[in-house]
């Protein structure tokens, strides 16, 4: 019988630490990306090969998109590593989560069987961790660029009652950003997982195929949205509250 769980299911434990299928999949994605990274690193040459060409095209395109938000190539290159890592991690998590076998290989037996692998973004721990990292990074970047006092004055402004209230709104907005980033990604990917599971359960052949293509697209778009919003938040934080 089809069972859908909002929470990632533990597949084994290391001491008291439960390793969930989403965390395990996230680790696999990490390994895949590191291997790709090492292969790319070994093949880096001044005259690029096909793989390096694609990588450079992607990097140049990403920097171009960041330039359109930050209006500064130096800044784009400065914040590129975090933003692009967020993008690529989410993208590969989403796409590898659509591979055949993910969700169908199970551990355990009978009613206690759980999928061995699960798309990492369908676990709130993954999306929340990324959102927390992104928003923390935004604040650190702003403090580094404009000064800690300036950044703190965004939240704690005692120049007047209106400024004070605006500061409180800014604090609330920071939490809202974390929640919106994490729940948007989680909601979309989890909904996609549920949709695919239901379609595969109802009509196992052919019919789920268009939905898989849809999820490939959604996976890309959600990764792009997360990365773009991080860039936009960085841009806003660097502009300061007076601009």
């Amino acid at each position, binding site marked *: 019988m089809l069972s859908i769980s*909002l*929470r*990632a299911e533990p597949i084994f434990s290391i001491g008291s*630490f*439960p390793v*969930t299928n989403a*965390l395990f999949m*996230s*680790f696999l994605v*990490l390994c895949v*990306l*590191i291997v790709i*990274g*090492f292969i*790319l*690193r070994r093949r*880096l040459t*001044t005259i690029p090969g096909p793989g390096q060409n694609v*990588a*450079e095209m992607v*990097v*140049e395109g990403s920097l171009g998109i960041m330039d359109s938000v930050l209006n500064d190539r130096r800044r784009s*290159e400065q914040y*590129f*590593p*975090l933003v*692009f*890592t*967020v993008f*690529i*991690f989410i993208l590969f998590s989403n796409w590898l989560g659509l591979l055949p076998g993910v969700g169908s290989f199970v551990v355990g037996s009978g009613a206690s069987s759980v999928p061995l692998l699960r798309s*990492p973004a369908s*676990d*709130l*721990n*993954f999306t*929340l*961790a*990324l959102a*927390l*990292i992104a928003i923390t990074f935004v604040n650190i970047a702003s403090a580094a660029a404009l000064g800690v006092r300036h950044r703190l004055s965004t939240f704690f402004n005692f120049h007047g009652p209106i400024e004070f209230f605006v500061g409180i709104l800014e604090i609330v907005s920071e939490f809202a950003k974390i929640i919106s980033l994490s729940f948007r990604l989680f909601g979309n990917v989890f909904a996609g997982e549920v949709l695919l599971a239901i379609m595969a359960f109802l009509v196992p052949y052919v019919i789920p195929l268009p939905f898989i293509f849809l999820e490939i697209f959604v996976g890309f778009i959600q990764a792009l949205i997360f990365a773009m919003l991080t860039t936009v938040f960085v841009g806003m934080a660097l502009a300061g509250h007076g601009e």
Partner: protein
Amino acid sequence: MQQLLSQLGIDWRLLIAQAVNFFVLLVVLLLYVYQPLLKLMRERGQRIEDGVMKADEADRRLLEIEEIGKEKIKAAEHEALGVIKKAEADGKTLEARLLAEARQKEEAALKNTEALLRAREEESRRALEKEAASFVRRAIAKTVDLAPETIDNALIAKAVEEAKQTA
């Protein structure tokens, strides 16, 4: 709150584990991919920029050299024209001087020739007079032998002639 977090499956240990996963990926990609790749792209971009700048510089210098070449050719043409004009003027001067010298030499040669001719004429005339005198002497001598009155008449005629000339 705790119940909500539990229902959503939020566990701070899993949260940290996912964050660690991300940071490991970030550090590895940063060290092994982003930095070398961006450095490579930057260097290539710089090289291309330098190449374009050098090409522009080369074009500019080529134009400058072409301009300098044109100016030099123009100056050389101008100088050559000057040299030709000067040569023509010098030629004319030399021609005039040579002509004058030739004329002087011609006149001198002419004078010399005239003097020579006069000298020769004088010499010839003297020789002729001498010859004539000798001839006359011999003729007189022969005539005297034949008829002394003839010589008297001749001497009288000569004396009369000389008297006419001196008169």
